[in-house]
């Protein structure tokens, strides 16, 4: 088994080469190559069904790639001999639907994985959990169950839960898409502060203002390939491809956005 100790300190946070993924006959990823450097914040945008979630899920092997390689901090996660549980510990993931554990309190959501996976003792796990909850502004909610929290609070607990594992890398899959508009800001503020602290982040989002302000780089995907990537002001501000332009105009024009399937 290859251990995390082997992780290369110099290697990029994520390196994806010739990644293909098919579900049956449906080719969802048709050859993806891209790299995320350490400390970089990369936003992935694109229409619904373009394969953004699938790409993200291939990085921590929630989806098994059909072919191609994925390296996380230099370790090839697609190698069948690698200890995938070990790799995933270093990769925090935040889901559109939060996926908090409903039978546990906010605090227990943070302590259980630490204790079971990292074998931290109860006192240390609790101390770290309280620290992370404070970081997302939810100190007073530690004994609430997920059902007692608003969507925005649940998503912040989910972020804190990932942070409690001390990840080197965070994946976000449309973290604000399931939220009421007035709750989006709190979650984005937490993500912004994470980015400011130098966390490596790969974020699938439809929040163009967030992408513009926070991302170092924006990747536009369509039909299972990367159509265009570059600095946000370039990709969002002055897109070079017709597909990017039409996607952005549909997203930014409220009348068109309402009927667009891509901002669900």
């Amino acid at each position: 088994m290859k251990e995390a100790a082997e992780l290369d300190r110099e290697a990029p946070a994520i390196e994806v080469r010739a990644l293909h993924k098919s579900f049956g006959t449906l080719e969802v990823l048709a050859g993806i190559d891209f790299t995320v450097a350490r400390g970089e914040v990369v936003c992935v945008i694109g229409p619904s069904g373009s394969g953004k979630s699938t790409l993200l899920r291939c990085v921590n092997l929630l989806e098994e790639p059909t072919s191609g390689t994925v390296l996380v901090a230099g370790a090839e996660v697609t190698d069948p001999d690698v200890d995938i549980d070990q790799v995933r510990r270093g990769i925090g993931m935040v889901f559109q639907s939060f996926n908090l554990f409903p039978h546990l309190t906010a605090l227990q959501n943070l302590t259980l994985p630490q204790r079971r996976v990292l074998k931290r003792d109860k006192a240390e796990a609790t101390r770290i959990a309280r620290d992370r909850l404070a970081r997302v502004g939810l100190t007073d909610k530690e004994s609430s169950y997920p059902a007692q929290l608003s969507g925005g609070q649940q998503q912040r607990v989910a972020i804190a839960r990932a942070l409690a594992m001390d990840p080197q890398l965070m994946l976000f899959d449309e973290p604000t898409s399931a939220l009421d508009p007035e709750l989006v800001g709190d979650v984005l503020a937490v993500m912004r502060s994470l980015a400011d602290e130098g966390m490596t982040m790969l974020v699938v989002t439809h929040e163009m203002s967030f992408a513009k302000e926070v991302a170092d780089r924006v990747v536009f995907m369509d039909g299972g390939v990367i159509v265009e990537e570059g600095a946000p002001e370039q990709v969002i501000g002055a897109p070079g491809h017709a597909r990017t332009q039409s996607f952005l105009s549909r997203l930014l024009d409220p009348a068109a956005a309402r009927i667009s399937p891509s901002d669900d």
Partner: protein
Amino acid sequence: MSMTRRQRTRLVRSAQYAVLGVVLVVIAQAADWGEIRRAFFDVEVAKAQFPDIITTALVNTVIYTLLGFGFGLALGLLLALMRLSQVPPYRWLAIVYIEFFRGIPALLVFIALGFGVPLAFQVALNQYVTVMLALGLVGAAYMAETIRAGIQAVPKGQTEAARSLGMSQGRAMVSIVIPQALRIVLPPLTNELILLTKDSSLVYLLGLSLSQYELAKFGRDALNQNRSLTPILIAGLCYLVITLPLGHLVRRLEARTARAR
């Protein structure tokens, strides 16, 4: 000859009450109330059943049921996991087990364990072990299917979140999925407990010593001694003392689950 709808409804309903009244009058006339009272409500016989029917029979019924339920729950959980296994032979084994034990009468299992095993293997199983096995083996088959449905009802995102935090498949199952699945299946499992309470009456087949009598056997013995149905009626009421609160609990749990959705 026209009737309004309301008139017709009224007529039909009055006719139904009239029939019921006639039936009741006929029964009251025909029945020998003295005989019925002697058979079912003999106060002397009733008094004689206490306190043993509670301290021995009711207690034993509860003990037998809980032994069978505990063993059946553990085995049922194992079977449910086998049923969901990625390894086909485990699935087949679980399916064969479940279909077999759901398809045969529990009575047969009691006979096999109570008489078959001692005869064939020359070993006498402890009475409590026999009861635990017999009730549990059958209960497990039903509970396995219930638990499997519960496990499958836990959203896939729960396992994905657990795996993304670095938990193994087994750890995610034990710490995240099973606790939620058991909550989901609490109402149907409580129903299973009610069924087992009644099935525990089959214990009367095994030759029991007096201190091991449960409600059905106790009632039957008292019936033979007193030539009165009163002990049977009391035993029946004792079952209801157990099963009615459990049934009430099921409805409360179901209402809670409905609210949580």
